[in-house]
């Protein structure tokens, strides 16, 4: 046991001290955090800063006033100017753009926006929606219809999904659940493949370097294999832990960095801009999910899945030589169930209670990925228990079998053994 821990710590520190580890562990969350911050910043700055637009209303469509609830844009009507004369002046007057409404053309090309640089899509979209609203209101009024009455009549229905679980009812956020499930499944899939192949490469390196023989004269092959698997697994857990901590820090720091934002989120109403509403929904949706349960399951399925596959990867690594093609031939059958798990997971997030999803989340070779794809939905207790139990059993079984293949393979040089030979190694004492 003591020797496993010596091997474990070597395998662990040699990887954690690498620059690439720091880069992926700290870099990826920082990039995500950056995006997050950028979105918040943009949505805030838009609502903060009023864009002033000059209007030359040649057609006198608005009668010198635009009813504007969207407070990010302010319109100023300019009189006694033509397009050609104003093009030279509007920048000097402090406008970035001006809107020209021509007298004669049809509604389709009546409006022209002149600007010093190309106007953003959101600006154009908001102006369009303001104009359309105003024009529609005018037309409705001219036909004797109250625009507010019209809005009420044409309002579309929207569905609120409430989940009635034992802990009481709560609002459901289907998109958020979907996204979290998918991301969890994807992460497990990626971690299993990345860390599994790391184990394989490490074992092959030891074998082709011939260090295996030196070490195996000091420790048992099984200790060497387990030390490596656990060491690399610990690297995965460290990465996971750092990500969680960064995530929490990020969530906690938002109210301090953007105090107004939290205020807006808590008062999220129809008048807020679309981005803010979306973010507010995301945050509410996330907090409605059973996050501790998700993190706990993630940990369990990562460990279970990783340990099961890592021992198989180690056995594969022990039988191949330097020949990369040889390694690929052998890795393919190991990757198959992982890929199958991923495919089932993409189906399971859409339909978490289908037979395929249930089977995939119980069958131990696919369960780590598929179960994470269903994790945000309510899963019957027996399914989780059975799935976890089978995963533990399969881990023990595969470690036992592959340990014996590894023991023989690591000291065999030359020709790649056949499947028949490997099965013989696995089942002889």
């Amino acid at each position: 046991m003591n020797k496993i821990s010596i091997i474990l710590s070597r395998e662990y520190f040699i990887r954690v001290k690498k620059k690439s580890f720091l880069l992926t562990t700290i870099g990826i969350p920082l990039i995500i955090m950056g995006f997050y911050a950028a979105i918040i910043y943009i949505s805030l700055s838009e609502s903060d800063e009023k864009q002033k637009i000059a209007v030359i209303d040649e057609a006198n469509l608005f009668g010198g006033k635009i009813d504007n609830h969207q407070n990010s844009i302010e319109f100023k009507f300019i009189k006694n100017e033509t397009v050609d004369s104003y093009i030279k002046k509007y920048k000097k007057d402090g406008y970035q753009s001006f809107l020209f409404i021509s007298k004669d053309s049809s509604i389709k090309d009546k409006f022209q926006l002149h600007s010093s640089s190309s106007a953003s899509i959101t600006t154009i979209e908001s102006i369009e929606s303001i104009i359309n609203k105003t024009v529609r209101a005018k037309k409705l009024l001219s036909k004797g219809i109250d625009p507010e009455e019209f809005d009420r009549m044409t309002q579309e229905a929207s569905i609120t999904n409430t989940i009635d679980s034992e802990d009481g009812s709560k609002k459901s956020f289907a998109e958020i659940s979907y996204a979290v499930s998918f991301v969890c499944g994807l992460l497990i899939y990626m971690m299993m493949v990345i860390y599994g192949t790391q184990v394989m490469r490490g074992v092959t390196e030891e074998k082709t370097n011939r260090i295996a023989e030196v070490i195996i004269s000091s420790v048992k092959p099984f200790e060497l294999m387990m030390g490596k698997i656990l060491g690399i697994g610990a690297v995965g857990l460290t990465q996971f832990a750092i990500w969680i901590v960064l995530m929490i820090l990020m969530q906690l720091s938002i109210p301090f960095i953007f105090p107004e934002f939290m205020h807006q989120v808590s008062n999220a109403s129809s008048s807020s801009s679309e981005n803010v509403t979306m973010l507010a929904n995301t945050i509410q949706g996330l907090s409605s999910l059973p996050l501790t349960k998700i993190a706990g399951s993630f940990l369990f399925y990562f460990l279970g899945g990783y340990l099961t596959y890592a021992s198989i990867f180690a056995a594969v690594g022990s039988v191949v030589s330097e020949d990369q093609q040889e390694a690929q031939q052998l890795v393919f059958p190991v990757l198959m169930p992982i890929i199958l798990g991923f495919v089932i997971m993409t189906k399971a997030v859409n339909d978490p209670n289908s037979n395929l999803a249930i089977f995939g989340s119980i069958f131990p070779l696919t369960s780590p990925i598929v179960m994470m794809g269903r994790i945000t939905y309510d899963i019957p207790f027996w399914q989780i228990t059975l799935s976890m139990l089978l995963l533990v059993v399969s881990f023990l079984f595969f470690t036992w079998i592959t340990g014996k293949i590894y023991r023989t393979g690591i000291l065999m040089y030359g020709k790649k053994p056949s499947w028949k030979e490997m099965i013989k190694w696995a089942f002889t004492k």
Partner: protein
Amino acid sequence: MNILELHSLKKDFSSQKAVDDISFSIKKGSIFGLLGPNGAGKTTLLRMITGIFHPDSGEILFNGKKFHAIDDIINIGYMPEERGLYKKMKIGEHAIYLARLKGMNKADAMASVKKWFVKFEMESWWNKKVEDLSKGMSQKLQFVTTILHNPSLIILDEPFSGLDPVNANIIKEEIFNLANNGATIIFSTHRMEQVEEICTQIVLINKGKKMLDGNIQDIKQDFKDNIFKIGANLTPEQLMTPIFEVIKHEKDSVQIKLSKETTNNELLNYFIQQQINIESFNEVLPSLNDIFIKLVENSTATRKFNITH
């Protein structure tokens, strides 16, 4: 007192007999040569002695007790023929790591690594990476890591391959040193001149079987061919006699093979009667190399013979 005794060890690899009923024992403090051509079963035998393989049958006694890999491994240092180190690791850390895997604690490992690095003038390498070492340097490092934990049995498989004469000499000196301090050394090789120089006792194996076992001087006596070298100026006429045949005739010496019935004195008499002035007279013992080749070729020949008939 024997540090190691092997009794009828056998190990098969799918139909092929890698080690077939081999027994011998090694005295404490001796330098023991394990010889054999490539594929003779030396590595398999060593792997059984180091606990990497279990023998199919037979028994290994270590210090008089049944060999138990987990307890006895601390007393054994093994340097395999195919050496390996982690390329990306720093040399100092690597040496400590291997010492700790043998069961030393951190402080002892550190002290021992420092001591040996100083002795072999390797202190300045401490923070270098293994991949930056030349072949000779990494060979030296490998030797040091083998003896870090003060093993009482040191097994060296082809320790001099890839070493220049200077470094080979340093390691040879250290082997004698270790043996003087009570360690036993098993030295596995197919390079005979090194064996003659270093070893006191040898075992020769071929095709998994033991061919020879004993003290080098005794073995040479057993295999001597009655060949003598006579330092004298001789004419071909003077060498016409039935008591010997000439093997090699040079300007001031001649090598002859004496017929079985003739004694040394009769030979000398023959020259003295002809008034020939003899400057020197020695028996030529066969080199281990000759014995080795003779034995190995014979066994292959008989095998071939057996197959054809």
